[in-house]
């Protein structure tokens, strides 16, 4: 019974991974940048579906919200700074292809050392001190039933502090490049005089 379910799960993940490859090829070959942006949003949505199939609900949640939602909107915004069509390439990019293929081969070679999905003998599962400690002691030690949250915020609080600092730093970088000022103001006829004054005070 459980083997059947596992087999079906593997089948679903395989199909979704194939869809991911097709989407990637579409993003590479499309010259229409708007369509490529929409496809990249779709890519995130399919990856979120894969994470759900692998029982990583928190990751799937983040991927769907950030990847499929916000970053698609921001990429659309970035598209407005450039043209909609990709420029036709004139130069020869064979060296780039070779470098990309070599890097890809190295990455695949690196994955050969990794434990396979759901492997009970992987280092994380065969050294029970840490993983088992999180899984068994988390409700007693932190009072938080969701182990992902307790690991993220408490056991690995330093990492999350660093991540938040990274998000903050990235925003500072973008703000210093683009700025929060409005570039060109259009008059909005429906605003009250008070709201208009606020808009003007923001400009100066």
């Amino acid at each position, binding site marked *: 019974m459980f083997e059947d379910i596992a087999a079906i799960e593997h089948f679903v993940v395989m199909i979704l991974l194939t869809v991911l490859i097709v989407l990637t090829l579409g993003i590479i070959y499309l010259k229409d940048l708007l369509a490529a942006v929409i496809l990249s949003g779709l890519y995130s949505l399919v990856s979120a579906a894969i994470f759900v199939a692998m029982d990583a609900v928190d990751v799937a949640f983040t991927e769907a919200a950030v990847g499929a939602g916000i970053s698609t909107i921001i990429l*659309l915004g970035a598209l407005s700074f450039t043209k909609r069509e990709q420029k036709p390439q004139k130069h020869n990019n064979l060296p780039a292809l070779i470098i990309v293929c070599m890097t890809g081969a190295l990455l695949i070679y690196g994955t050969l050392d990794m434990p396979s999905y759901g492997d009970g003998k992987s280092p994380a599962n065969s050294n029970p001190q840490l993983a088992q400690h999180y899984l068994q002691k988390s409700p007693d030690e932190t009072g938080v039933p969701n182990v992902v*949250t307790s690991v993220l*915020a408490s056991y690995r609080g330093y990492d999350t502090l660093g991540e938040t600092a990274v998000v903050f730093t990235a925003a500072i970088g973008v703000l210093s490049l683009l700025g929060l000022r409005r570039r060109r103001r259009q008059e909005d006829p429906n605003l009250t005089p008070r709201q208009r004054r606020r808009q003007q005070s923001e400009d100066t």
Partner: protein
Amino acid sequence: MNKQLEQRHRVVQVITKFLTPMILLFAFYVQFHGDFGPGGGFQAGVIFASVFILHGLIFGEGRTRLVVTPNILRISMSLGLLLYAGTGVVSLLLGGNFLDYSVLASDAVSGQHWGIFVVELGVGITVAAVMISLFYCFSSNRFLDRIPFKIQEEE
């Protein structure tokens, strides 16, 4: 022209106004229920920001800036990170290690609970402010010209 466009997108605007409180409520649910189900500060911050991005897309970014001004964003962006790091400093001052929440309350478990609550709140505030300000940065008027739901139009 402006009037006509506004009329044409009336349905979208009404639906947006109808959905806004629900999405906000969902963001708060994800934020504060992250201890028990999937979710947490990062996801809640993004969902919270998506409300204002939706508002900006439908009603024009100029009006969203009246609701959430860039100053609010600048302050809350830093406030979230300070809240996180400040929790660590408070736990240092109370005699524990940095980010050791056990000392925050009378017993260790409720201390952990409070610590995780405050830290996730800090993450949520920072992420929401960062996402909204990224949207402000990338949405010029040219951007609003391209999307279908614009209501602002050159007179």
